[in-house]
């Protein structure tokens, strides 16, 4: 295993230092760090972050390998500065058995570009009717701790209560896709001025907020951990703030696109901007940014959702919801003003803790696993969909110039990205 000496990287307290990486761990930190025969990486002017951790990734394998595979998604993640991603369960077949989560886990190990931590479905086939074998997934080789029917809400309150209770046996957490389905029948975009004008069926904010309020109360009642996926409204922020003040064990994520883009993007009717939950008005975007700064929202998660061209090059109403995120997340959150320390907290330290990924989310220190990424804070780049590593092209940022570029990523001491390029 090659030893690396990273010279002159700014760690998140702002000071420049050297990092010696040997045998998969950070062996030494400081200007006096030296390693005989080490390959030197000039990191002058670069920022060293703990490797990013995504709690919400769709890798599409098994089932839609035309849109993404575990390998292509892992490569996209590494290029985005990630060292771990949590793979959502809405594959085909659904990841609702130990067999499927182990398959995804092994594909991740084989690709070897990031740690792929499978998420297990809460209910069989995501159908919302009966619990999947959560314990079998927890004790499988994939050691599943996060369970989610993402893409669908666990809408039945009794079933949700049971899921929250049941996962306590193995310190699990239920990640809820908060969407009251009876309020979003046929919904295409945020319900408001723009949907009224465009004649697209509205997705009201209350459909999200009602479920978050209900589930926070359920989590309190049964003393469980609850995680809310892709929070998108100002009202949700208020409910989360209230729940946290009450001591309810709830955490929440926001996506980069909900921090940057608004519902007016739908005016083009280009389904690259169709996503679930939908893009919201600017007042919601402002509230989400403030909530992230305040800590009411705990993490940024990508909801990376690759889709084949034919599922996006069509009428808005027929298109599948979702957008790419792994390769742009760091730059997007930087563009909305997050400090490097806030990025380390919201995209690495806290998501690693929520997901129970103990090898990740740690700042470089002697003895910690060498999962880290080096970022050029001064670089800018223009998003070219064709140049992305994902198999799909549905980025909403095409043509946008964004700040900061990932230069190198290390997974347990081995580079997955060097000079801004994937090593394989």
């Amino acid at each position, binding site marked *: 295993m090659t030893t690396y000496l990273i010279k002159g990287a700014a760690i998140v307290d702002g000071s420049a230092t050297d990092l010696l990486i040997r045998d998969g761990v950070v062996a030494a930190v400081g200007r006096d760090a030296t390693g005989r025969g080490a390959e030197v990486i000039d990191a002058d002017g670069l920022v060293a972050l703990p490797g990013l951790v995504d709690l919400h990734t769709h890798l599409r394998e098994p089932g839609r390998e035309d849109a993404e595979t575990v390998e292509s998604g892992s490569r996209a993640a590494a290029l985005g500065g990630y060292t771990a991603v949590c793979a959502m369960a809405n594959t085909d077949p659904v990841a609702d058995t130990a067999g499927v989560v182990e398959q995804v886990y092994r594909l991740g190990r084989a690709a070897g570009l990031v740690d792929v931590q499978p998420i297990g479905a809460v209910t069989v086939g995501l159908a919302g009717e009966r619990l999947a074998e959560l314990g079998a997934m927890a004790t499988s080789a994939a050691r599943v701790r996060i369970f989610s029917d993402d893409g669908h809400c666990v809408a039945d309150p009794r079933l949700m209560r049971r899921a929250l209770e049941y996962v306590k046996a193995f310190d699990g957490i239920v990640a809820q896709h908060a969407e009251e389905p009876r309020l979003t029948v046929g919904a*295409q975009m945020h*319900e*408001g*001025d*723009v*949907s*009224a*004008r*465009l*004649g*697209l*069926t*509205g997705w*009201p904010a209350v459909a999200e907020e009602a479920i978050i309020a209900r589930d926070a109360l359920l989590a309190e009642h049964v003393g469980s951990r609850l995680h809310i996926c892709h929070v998108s409204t100002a009202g949700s922020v208020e409910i989360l703030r209230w729940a946290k003040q009450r001591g309810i064990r709830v955490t929440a994520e926001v996506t980069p696109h909900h921090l940057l883009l608004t519902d007016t993007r739908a005016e*083009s*009717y*280009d389904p690259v901007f169709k996503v679930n939950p939908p893009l919201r008005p600017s007042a919601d975007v402002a509230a989400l940014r403030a909530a992230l700064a305040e800590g009411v929202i705990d993490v940024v998660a990508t909801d990376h959702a690759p889709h084949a061209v*034919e599922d996006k*090059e*069509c*009428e*808005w*109403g*027929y298109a599948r919801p979702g957008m790419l995120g792994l390769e742009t997340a760091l730059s997007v959150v930087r563009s909305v003003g997050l400090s490097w320390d806030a990025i380390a907290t919201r995209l690495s330290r806290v998501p690693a803790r929520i997901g129970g990924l103990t090898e990740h989310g740690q700042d470089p220190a002697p003895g910690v696993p060498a999962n880290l990424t080096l970022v050029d804070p001064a670089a800018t780049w223009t998003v070219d969909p064709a140049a992305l590593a994902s198999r799909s092209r549905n980025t909403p940022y095409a043509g946008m110039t964004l700040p900061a570029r990932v230069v190198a990523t290390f997974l347990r001491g081995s580079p997955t990205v060097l000079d801004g390029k994937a090593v394989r």
Partner: protein
Amino acid sequence: MIRHLLSAADLDADNATLVLDTAAEMANLAGREVKKLPTLRGRTVVNLFYEDSTRTRISFEAAAKRLSADVINFSAKGSSVSKGESLKDTALTLQAMGADAVVIRHSASGAPHRLATWVDGSVLNAGDGTHEHPTQALLDAYTMRARLGRLDGLAVAIVGDVLHSRVARSNVLLLHTLGARVTLVGPPTLLPVGVDAWPAKTSYDLDAVLPDADVVMMLRVQRERMDDAYFPSVREYSRRYGLDAVRMRKLPEHAIVMHPGPMNRGMEISPDVADSPRSPIVEQVANGVSVRMAVLYLLLGGQHK
């Protein structure tokens, strides 16, 4: 002139007035023995209809033929579309055939906008989902102007299922552009969230609006909306928002009653109102051809490859 007609908002007051004035000239043609102009000879107009709408398709077909264009009717049923061809592939096919204009009717809001990104010719929105139907608004405005002599300052009440109505959206935009004052009337369930941002007033009380209206436009209300709890029953809807002879007496003498068709007689409009001389509903059909001739003429007339 604009290249596409996707929304009534694409027309400013000058262009909208030009369309109506040109339509008036086209209407004169209808009285002649030979009803044809050579204006669009050699040009190809495709009617691309993903929804059954014989009325609108025939209107566009007649309009294009009277301007001597070659007309191709491309109905989604029984074509490659029903075999799963995408809108984009269909667009590229029409492009390869050299379509100068594509008239599209589609159940998905925004389909004409998508089409316009894939073809070089003009795209005319002939009704897209619950979004817009701009030529319907033009023919309605034409009819109002013909009957009442002006549009500026007219009080127009649009009544019924505004939420799902492409006719209402286009009419609000166009009538506002042309200086009319629009009031949208219906049960709160059938007025969209966000309607406050439209250049129109809203009311839940039809009886209160009628005495000051110059025009009442009754929208078609599908009975199935009842199943989604938009209103409790057909009878209750009809009682609160239907226009019958008794209610019509609240209108000023000069006021007219319009309906974009097809009508649900006995639901939003009673048969005696529909058939009264104050309802230019059949006139609307004839005006439709003139207005569509004007739009095709103005969008295509100036262009030569």
